[in-house]
C-alpha cells in the first residue's frame, strides 16, 4: 500500500471517482490549473481535462447553485469552497435548495453533489480561514455532513460521499492535511456515512471528537494512561446523521463523557452530543457529560489562537476533573 497524507488521500479519491464515473466533475476557485490552494486537486485537470476539473468565477453562491443544476441534470459535481469562511455566501443555496430539492419534488429531482470544505483553525491564517461551521450544516435537514480524521478515512468517506445519492458536506480538517501519514489502499473502498469509529478502547471515560481534535485527544489519552486511567475515544466521523449506537454502547460502559470540538460552544456540536448522551445513557451517567469547545468568540488571529484552540493538556485537565468527579 501507498503511504499518503490526507491531501493525497483526497486527491486519490477524486482521481478514482473521476476515472470511474464520467458524470463526476470537480470545480471551484483555483482547483483547475493551480490544483487548489492546498494542492488537493493537483494534477487532476491535466489528467481528466478542463471540462471535468476546472476553475469557476469567484462566486460561492453560484458554485453551489450550479452544482445543484448539474446534479438534477444527471451529473455528480464535487465542488470546493476554498475555505470554511467562504462557504457562508453559499448558505442560501445549500440551505434553501441543495438540502431540499429531493423533498420538494418528492424524489423527482435529487442532488448527488459533494461540497468539500477545508475547515478549522491552527494554520496561522487570516480571519475567515479558520472557521468550524459544522453545526450550521448539522442543523440543516437534508444534508449529510462528514469529517475524516485520517487519510484512510478521508479517501473512503469521500468516495462514499460522491456515491451517495444525496448531498454531502465533506469537511476537511486542514490543520492535519499533511500531519498524518498512513497506508491507504490504492483501490476503491467505501466508509459508510453515519458510522463512528472507536479509535481507542477504554473503560472509565468516553471522549467523543472528530477531525483535528482526534489527534489532540489521543495525546491526552496517553497522558491519562500514565495516571492509570483508561479512556475510550470515539471518532464521530459523521456529524449528521450521528451514530447513536456507538455512543450509547460506550457511555453505558464508561459512565463518563467528554465532548471535544473546535467550534464555538453555544449551539455547537457538543451540545447535540450531550443531548444524545442524555437520551441514550442517562441512567449510566456517573458525572455530568462535559464539553470542551472553542469559546463563544470569533476565533482569534494567529497570535491569539493558542487560547482558543484546544490542547492535549486542556483535554487532560477535563479528563482528570471528570474521573475525579
Amino acid at each position, binding site marked *: 500500500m501507498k503511504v499518503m497524507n490526507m491531501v493525497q488521500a483526497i486527491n486519490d479519491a477524486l482521481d478514482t471517482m473521476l476515472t470511474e464515473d464520467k458524470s463526476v466533475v470537480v470545480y471551484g476557485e483555483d482547483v483547475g490549473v493551480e490544483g487548489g490552494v492546498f494542492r488537493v486537486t493537483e494534477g487532476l485537470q491535466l489528467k481528466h481535462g478542463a471540462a471535468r476539473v476546472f476553475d469557476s468565477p469567484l462566486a460561492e*453562491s453560484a458554485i453551489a447553485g450550479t452544482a445543484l*443544476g448539474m446534479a438534477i441534470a*444527471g451529473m455528480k459535481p464535487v465542488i470546493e469552497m476554498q475555505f470554511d469562511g467562504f462557504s457562508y455566501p453559499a448558505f*442560501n443555496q445549500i440551505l434553501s435548495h441543495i438540502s431540499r430539492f*429531493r423533498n420538494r419534488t*418528492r424524489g423527482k429531482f435529487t442532488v448527488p453533489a459533494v461540497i468539500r470544505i477545508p475547515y478549522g483553525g491552527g494554520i496561522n491564517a487570516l480571519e475567515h480561514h479558520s472557521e468550524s461551521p459544522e453545526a450550521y450544516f448539522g442543523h440543516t*435537514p437534508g444534508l449529510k455532513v462528514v469529517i475524516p480524521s485520517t487519510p484512510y478515512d478521508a479517501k473512503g468517506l469521500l468516495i462514499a460521499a460522491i456515491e451517495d445519492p444525496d448531498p454531502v458536506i465533506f469537511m476537511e480538517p486542514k490543520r492535519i492535511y499533511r500531519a498524518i501519514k498512513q497506508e491507504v489502499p490504492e483501490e476503491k473502498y467505501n466508509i459508510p456515512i453515519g458510522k463512528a469509529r472507536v479509535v481507542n478502547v477504554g473503560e472509565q471515560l468516553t471522549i467523543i471528537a472528530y477531525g483535528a481534535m482526534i489527534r489532540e485527544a489521543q495525546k491526552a489519552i496517553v497522558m491519562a494512561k500514565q495516571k492509570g486511567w483508561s479512556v475510550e475515544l470515539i471518532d464521530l466521523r459523521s456529524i449528521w*446523521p450521528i451514530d447513536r449506537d456507538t455512543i450509547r454502547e460506550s457511555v453505558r460502559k464508561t459512565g463518563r463523557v467528554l465532548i471535544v470540538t473546535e467550534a464555538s460552544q453555544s449551539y455547537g456540536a457538543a451540545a447535540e452530543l450531550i443531548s444524545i448522551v442524555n437520551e441514550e445513557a442517562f441512567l449510566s451517567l456517573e458525572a455530568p457529560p462535559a464539553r470542551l469547545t472553542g469559546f463563544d468568540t470569533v476565533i482569534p488571529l494567529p497570535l491569539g489562537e493558542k487560547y482558543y484552540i484546544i490542547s492535549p493538556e486542556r483535554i487532560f485537565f477535563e479528563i482528570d476533573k471528570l474521573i475525579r468527579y
Partner: protein
Amino acid sequence: MFNHETLDKYSPLENKIFQLIDDDGMPLDKKWKPALSDKQIIQAYKDLLFERTADYMAVSYQRQGRMFTYPPNLGQEAIHIATGMVIKEDDWLVPDFRELGAWLAKGVSMREIFLYFKGNEDGSRFVNAKRMLPVSVPIASQLVHAVGIGYAMNYQKEKAVVFAFVGDGGTSEGDFHEALNFAAVWNVPVVFIVQNNQFAISVPIKTQTKSQNLALKGVAYAIPSVLVDGNDVFAMHEVLAFARDHADSGKGPVLIEARTYRIGAHTTSDDPTKYRTKEEEAAWALKDPLKRLKGYIEAKKLFDTSGEEALVAEYKKKIDKEFEAAEKHPEYPLDDVFKYMYQEMPSELRRQKNAYENYLQNKGGAK
C-alpha cells in the same frame, strides 16, 4: 423596427422596445407577416384564454378559503404562452413562480398547481412535465440552477435549451448577477427571461434599479439582450424563437426583458391599491395581451371570438374538475414528512418518526 434577423444586432442601450402589434392588435409594420401560422395564432389565443380563466378560478378558490395563497398571472400571459410555443420537450423550464401558461405547456396539470398552492408537496411532482423544475421561492436563486443545467447539457452533448424565469425584483439579487456571469463564461444554452411587471410586491421598478431597462444588465456580461413588449405575443414569440436558436446553436445565453404589467395583486394576500394608482392601471389595461391578440384575430377574421364565453365555460368546467381532483387528493400521510428527505431514511429520522407514532398510539392512554 426589428425582426428575427436584426435581433442579432439589437442593443438594449438604445432603449427601444421590440414590438410587433399595437395596443389594438394592429401590426406596426404593414408589411409584417407573423411567423406563426393561423392555427398557431388561434391556439395561442385559446391558451391565453385558458391561462386567464384558470387564474381567475384560482383566485376565487382562494377567496373561498379552499387554497392558502395564489400569485395571479393576469396580464403577463403573452410571455407564458409564447414560451410554451417555443420550448421543446427536451428543453428545461426553470420557473420563478408566475408563469402559469408556460408550465401548462410543459405538461404540468392544473391539479398539481392547485395541490401545490393548497400546501402539498405532491403538487411539485409534475408527473407529466419533463424537465420542469418546481417553483422557486427564494427570489432569483433558481437562475444559478439553470446555469448548472446548461453546463450539463453542454457536457452531456445534449441539444436542449434551458428557459429560466425571474422577475424585475429578482434582478437585484446577487444570484442574478452570478448566474449571468457564469452563464456567459461557461457559454451555456440558457435563455433568461425577466418578467418586468413593474413591481416587486409593492416596490416599483424605479426603487429597484436606476437603469433605463433591464435588458441593459446583460451588457455587463457580454450576453445578447433584448427588451421586448411582454404583452405582445407575436413579439414575445419572435424574440424567444431567436433566443432559443441562439442558445441552441452553441452561441451561449440570451437575456430577455419582457416588459409587462401585473394586473392583479402580488398574491391573494396583497392589496395593490396601497401602492399604485387607478390611472396607471387604466393605462396598462390598454395593453392587455388578450385584448391585443383578440384585436389581431378579429381584424384578420381568423376565428370567431364571439364564442369566447362558451370557451371560457368549457375551460371552467375543466378547471373545476382539476380543482376537485386536487381536493380529493389523498390525505397527507405522516410518512411523506420523512420519506423524501433522503433516498434511504437515516435511522435518526426513523427514530423521530417512531417517537411521533408512539405519541399517536399512546396519547389517549396518557390522558
